């Protein structure tokens, strides 16, 4: 079955774990390596580990509009990479290419060394390895929180009813919503809905989680709970690629910040570097505009 990923190859990054250690432990217990095989890439990165997520020369156009003009990015195990940039810079499109919700025109994407772009890839299999959280939550309104989580467990993972329920309750517990399992999305606040959406993705035990502006649709007072859940996931060793405007979150939780503009990665570095000493003029202009808000 699944093998434990933590405790073997993971670097000890528990210094970042300033939140509830018990909760972190429970998040960790959900991080399995599912036994899914695809085209495997022998290439190994500089530090001897295959990156969790690797994007090579990604191009994407919508009609005459070139949204991505050759993006290269590697995300290491347990790394939280924060992507920022003006609207229309291609950051969401890049994210959506990573689980093939958008079809890249050129370029390759690897998950744990497995090629996921091109023909002949089992999309439904690779998508279980890549969790995605949407700006608009996109919970199924006709299903309870618990059933939102169990649907893919039963239909994709082939779990039995009781097994999927136990798994879903565990995932809902991770995000602090076990007591809301039988509530319908319309009965939940925006922040709670987004946490159920995270549980839905987390329950499939993905190797990488993609966040597409997870807090942009939330009232300010509800943002904190969602960020807390993301912090716990990070502490538990999840690999995360986050598109967001939560600068404070980026400053404290991100391992690396990437600034994108006009379909390219303009600048990247530690949060302190990018926010404190932006090298590129476009980064400076963007940051000053955001700070002015």
């Amino acid at each position, binding site marked *: 079955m699944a093998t434990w990923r933590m405790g073997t190859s993971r670097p000890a990054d528990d210094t970042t774990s300033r939140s509830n250690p018990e909760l972190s432990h429970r998040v960790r217990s959900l991080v399995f390596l599912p036994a899914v095989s695809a085209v495997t890439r022998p290439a190994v990165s500089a530090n001897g580990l295959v990156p969790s997520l690797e994007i090579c020369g990604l191009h994407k156009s919508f009609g005459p509009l070139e949204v991505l003009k050759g993006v290269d990015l590697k995300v290491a195990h347990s790394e939280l990479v924060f992507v920022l940039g003006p609207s229309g810079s291609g950051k969401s499109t890049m994210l959506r290419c990573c689980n093939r919700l958008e079809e890249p025109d050129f370029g390759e994407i690897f998950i744990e060394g497995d090629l996921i772009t091109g023909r002949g890839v089992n999309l439904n299999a690779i998508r279980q390895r890549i969790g995605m959280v949407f700006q608009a939550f996109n919970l199924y309104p006709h299903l309870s929180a618990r059933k939102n989580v169990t649907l893919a467990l039963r239909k994709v993972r082939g779990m039995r009813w009781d097994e999927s329920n136990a798994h879903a309750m565990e995932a809902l517990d991770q995000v602090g919503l076990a007591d809301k399992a039988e509530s319908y999305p319309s009965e939940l606040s925006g922040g709670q809905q987004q946490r159920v959406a995270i549980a839905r993705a987390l329950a*499939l035990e993905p190797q990488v989680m993609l966040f597409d502006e997870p807090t942009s649709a939330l009232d300010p007072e509800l943002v904190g709970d969602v960020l807390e859940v993301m912090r716990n996931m990070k502490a538990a060793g999840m690999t995360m690629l986050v598109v967001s405007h939560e600068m404070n979150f980026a400053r404290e939780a991100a391992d690396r910040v990437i600034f994108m503009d006009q379909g390219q990665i303009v600048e990247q570095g530690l949060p302190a570097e990018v926010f404190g000493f932006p090298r590129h003029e476009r980064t400076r202009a963007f940051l000053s505009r955001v700070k002015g808000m």
Partner: protein
Amino acid sequence: MDRIVDQFFNLEIMVAAWPTVLQGLGMTVLICLAVIPMGLGGGLLAALGSTARRHWIRWPVVVFVDFFRAIPPLVLLIFVYAGLPFAGIRLSPFAAVVIAFFLNNSAYYGEIFRAGIQSVGFGQTEAARSTGLSAIQTLTHVILPQAVRNVLPDLLSNTIEVIKLTSLASVVSLAEMLYSADMARSVTYNASPIVLAAGVYLVLLWPLVRLVSRFGRGLAT
């Protein structure tokens, strides 16, 4: 006054005509049992076709739906029953009714299902596919349950229309309820059997009409 009662509400004649009308009701129910599920099934396929991304699937379906929505069902029925024999295709009255109403209903149910499917945001599909559900699983477990719920009053309303539509089958001398009642009228030379049939339609359909109205109120508030 007595004359009106005698001509339209003659109990004696109604009692005498009852077995005939009841037999006709049986045929009406039989037509409904054939035509409604087939129409729902055909309508679902039409809706999937008319919302397909590939245009070579979409446009023939759109033409099909438009065509059969524009043709009056009575014209279609008479063409299938009395027109097709000129092409060597000879159908029983029942088969002609089922085919004509299947085509008509598929087009109407199809438009309702299409509206329902399009009322479900694309984010639902994206969320479902992102968890590894296949296109078919997304459709059956995520899109259709929401789509059907959103257009349930329209589906029910159309179904009432279909039940009433079955009385057209009398023109191809299929012995459904109206035809049987009209037979009884011509034999007894009295309108009471027709009134009886009308009463049966009323008793059957009135609760459904009420239900649709309540749905409408429920959605409005």
